[in-house]
């Protein structure tokens, strides 16, 4: 019977990136995907005729350009377009916009505070410095600090040197940054509620923490270290929705000879004498492979796909305790016309930007309080945008797709499973918030898809619907991600690797975990990695 060189479980972006690099290294690779389509959480789905939904992830910035280039993704249809800044609507009928033009940005902030307007340069300098420190670490395997292998020592030295290269002031800031709450961090620069709320957004997205929780400053950094074609920190739309990313990856994979089997859910990893030998599908079919690489999160991989007896106790305990908490949901809406927001001038670029209705950190924190109590937020935080204002391929002319990322949504309601009624109540909290700022909004809705953590876990497979496959808190980063001692994409089971966002450097549609895992696998196979570009220089 055929034994594949490698079987990748899950056709999400990291699984496909990993598969592409392995296939291009000469391996015979099979990707098995439980859904009838590939993409994981980077999909474009036509759930109502004529409308494509980016129904999980919805914007693109973190995806590494080195990967796009190595895997020739533009040739396979990937195009990322920058969008305008964003805005926070205020409850008194105004809004705070973020404009791309530096001086317009300052003037807009000066409408609320002249001081804050002039504080932006220093804020931006400090955050940029931190990004530049972190960025080169994304495309490297985190060192194992307990190992004395020359490679690990070398990587540790690299990390140490980078840290030592900081000035005393920067070092202080770095340590503060990695441990502070975004609220405390912003207090050092800004005084105005809406301006702080505007920047705090990146500190809470995808995270089961409030803006006042320590560790959220780093989450902001995670959202800032991407780029659109060299414009660091910028965000864009994948033309055709986020599915274009994985569609291009799948096409690149197939073009290099790879095989994808959709509609094939893995029941468990086949393990013999502590070594992975393949996978067994839900229907009982056995597929043999010399290596198995899991794109699923670390909990799903080791608590569902691998038998407990194959794993060391401490590893198992740490996997169980790995924080991968559901905190967000998604409402995807097809609209028969562009919504109006009376607070916005009709010609405002904000229509082509991300929009928010939470105008203070206090309100964000109260929304988080609901999560802690096991409820969806009565006054939710929304990250809302209408990609069809820039992307003509996702809806018929004049009609629009609106993506609403919603926080907070707990994995369970008062300790019990979500029900259909809960889901409707959650959707209503979102729609009523939008309608408060956009009269007649409900009448424009053609179709709507509501996804609570329950739906996201059921369809995509992300445990608790956590978009990052694990919190981006400092205790779960670098050589501690996902589990100390197993941060280099290998696992306690021989031949079983991890390549999902549960691994370094974490979540977002970045591709770096998939790429880094491929580099480790090829190292173990003593295969060359010449087809993998080194990380772009940060100069």
């Amino acid at each position, binding site marked *: 019977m055929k034994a594949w060189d490698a079987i990748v479980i899950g056709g999400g972006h990291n699984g496909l990136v990993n598969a592409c690099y392995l296939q291009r290294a000469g391996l015979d690779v099979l990707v098995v995907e439980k859904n009838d389509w590939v993409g994981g959480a980077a999909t474009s789905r036509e759930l109502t005729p004529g409308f494509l939904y980016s129904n999980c992830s919805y914007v693109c910035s973190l995806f590494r350009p080195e990967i796009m280039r190595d895997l020739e993704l533009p040739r396979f249809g990937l195009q990322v377009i920058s969008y305008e800044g964003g805005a926070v609507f205020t409850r008194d009928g105004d*809004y705070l916009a973020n404009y791309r*033009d*530096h*001086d*317009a940005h*300052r003037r807009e902030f000066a409408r609320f505070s002249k001081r804050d307007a*002039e504080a932006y340069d220093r804020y931006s*300098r400090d955050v940029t410095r931190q990004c530049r420190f972190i960025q080169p670490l994304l495309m490297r395997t985190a060192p194992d600090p307990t190992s004395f292998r020359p490679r690990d020592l070398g990587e540790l030295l690299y990390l140490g040197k980078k840290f030592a290269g900081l000035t005393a*002031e920067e070092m202080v800031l770095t340590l503060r940054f990695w441990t502070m709450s975004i609220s405390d961090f912003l207090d050092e620069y800004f005084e105005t509620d809406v301006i702080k709320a505007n920047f705090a957004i990146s500190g809470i997205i995808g995270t089961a923490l409030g803006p006042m929780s320590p560790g959220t400053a780093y989450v902001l950094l995670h959202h800032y270290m991407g780029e659109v074609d060299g414009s660091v920190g910028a965000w864009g739309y994948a033309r055709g929705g986020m599915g274009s990313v994985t569609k291009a990856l799948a096409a690149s994979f197939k073009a290099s000879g790879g095989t994808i089997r959709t509609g094939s859910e893995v029941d468990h990893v086949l393990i013999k004498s502590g070594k992975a030998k393949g996978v067994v599908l839900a229907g009982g079919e056995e597929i043999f492979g010399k290596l198995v690489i899991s794109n699923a999160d670390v909990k799903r991989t080791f608590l569902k796909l691998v038998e407990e007896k194959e794993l060391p106790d401490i590893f198992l305990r740490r996997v169980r305790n790995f924080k991968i908490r559901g905190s967000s949901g998604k409402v995807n809406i097809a609209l028969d016309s562009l919504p109006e927001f009376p607070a916005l*001038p009709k010609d405002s670029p904000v229509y082509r930007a991300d929009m928010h209705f939470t105008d203070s950190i206090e309100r964000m924190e109260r929304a988080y309080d609901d999560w802690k109590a096991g409820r969806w937020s009565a006054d939710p935080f929304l990250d809302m945008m209408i990609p069809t204002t820039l992307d003509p391929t996702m809806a018929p002319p004049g009609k629009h797709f609106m993506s609403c990322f919603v926080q907070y949504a707990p994995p369970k309601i008062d300790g019990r499973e979500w029900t259909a009624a809960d889901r409707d109540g959650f959707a209503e909290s979102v729609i009523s918030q939008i309608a408060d700022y956009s009269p007649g909004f409900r009448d424009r809705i053609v179709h709507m898809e509501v996804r609570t953590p329950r739906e996201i876990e059921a369809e995509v497979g992300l445990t608790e619907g956590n978009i990052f496959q694990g919190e981006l808190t400092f205790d779960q980063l670098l050589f501690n991600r996902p589990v100390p001692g197993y941060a280099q994409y290998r696992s306690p089971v021989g031949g079983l690797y991890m390549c999902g966002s549960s691994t370094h450097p974490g979540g977002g549609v970045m591709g770096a975990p998939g790429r880094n895992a491929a580099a480790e696998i090829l190292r173990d196979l003593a295969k060359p990695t010449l087809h993998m570009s080194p990380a772009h220089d940060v100069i």
Partner: protein
Amino acid sequence: MNRHVKIKSARSAAQSHFRTLRLGTPFQPRIDALGLKQDWYSWAGYRAPHSLWDEELEYFAIRSQAALFDISPMTKYRIEGPDAEAYLDRVTLRDVTKLKPGRVHYTAWCDDEGFVLDDGTLFRLSSTRFRLCSQERHLPWLLDSAIGYEVSVEEETEAVAGLALQGPTSFAILRDAGFAGVERLKIFDLAEFAHDGATITISRTGFTGDLGYELFVPADKALSLWDRLMAAGELRGIRAIGYTALNRARLEAGLIVANADFTASEHAIRADRLRMPDEIGLGFMVDPEKGHFNGRRAILEARARKKLHHVLVGLEIEGNIPAEHAIVYYRKSHEVGLVSAAMWSPMAKRNIALASLQRPYGDTIVDDLWVEIYAMRELQYQKLMKKAKVVPRPFIKLDRRTANPPADF
């Protein structure tokens, strides 16, 4: 109009700035009319002219007649209160207690690490009232530094328009325009004058190394001031100019520009780009005798420990090809710095430049310095290795700049 509607319309007026990414200054109607080249750049978000009709001739207007240059986009802070002097003494490098009312000085200010935040001019309008002009914006820094002082700091960039009138006939134009008493202004003096029912400030200052004045006027009186000067200057060759011409004049005068000749500390992402005053030729401003000021400890420590890594120098380069952004070498091979501004000086008839060098080069080692000029000629670099000599700044010294009474051309 009821109150609610009023608030709404004021708000939508304020919001509408997104439709005009490059604002006009209060002088814009006049400048637009003269901007034959439509050659604009963004100066702090304002539409400012690189050149209006001919950058060479605009430069010669500065040196031969009088040139009118709009400085409204410059950042201006009004600093007022019984503690204003003590406060500014603490914020800036120079001794403000020596700055008498009616005087102006060129100064700079640093962060707590002693790195230069910006340079600018400080106008002492009265014993308790100052105006600080700068390239960059510093309100959070100025407000934080004001804690504990009885002083108010207000940003007034938009409220106050500014003009630089520079060149040999500038005095005669002001006198002919009817600003009686302007002849009494010595270099770095300022005084208030009546104009169109308002009060304006005229100082004998400028950025050209020439005889010249700067005028600050409430924004709503800007156009009538422009017209008054243009009318008075008609027979004295007055011309409006753009930044390219001014930039040449300032280089001849040996003056530096923030974020062109050094990186202001709030913009420096790379830690090694930060500069202390001694590293950009502003060490003379540091007054260790005057008591505490922001950055004092760090600057004095760097001096004591000889930790000043850079030096900004004036260079005279052989030949006549400008060495803009050329790399500076020691013995033609060892890289020691970078030219930040360079030109052939029409007034000095020399090829001049400003450069930042790594000490000891430019400091104790000044011989055997070279610049490598990449001159693009018809799609080919002509690479030239030219000898450079460290020379004192300014590159030109014009007696008319300081002559009293000012010459009447």
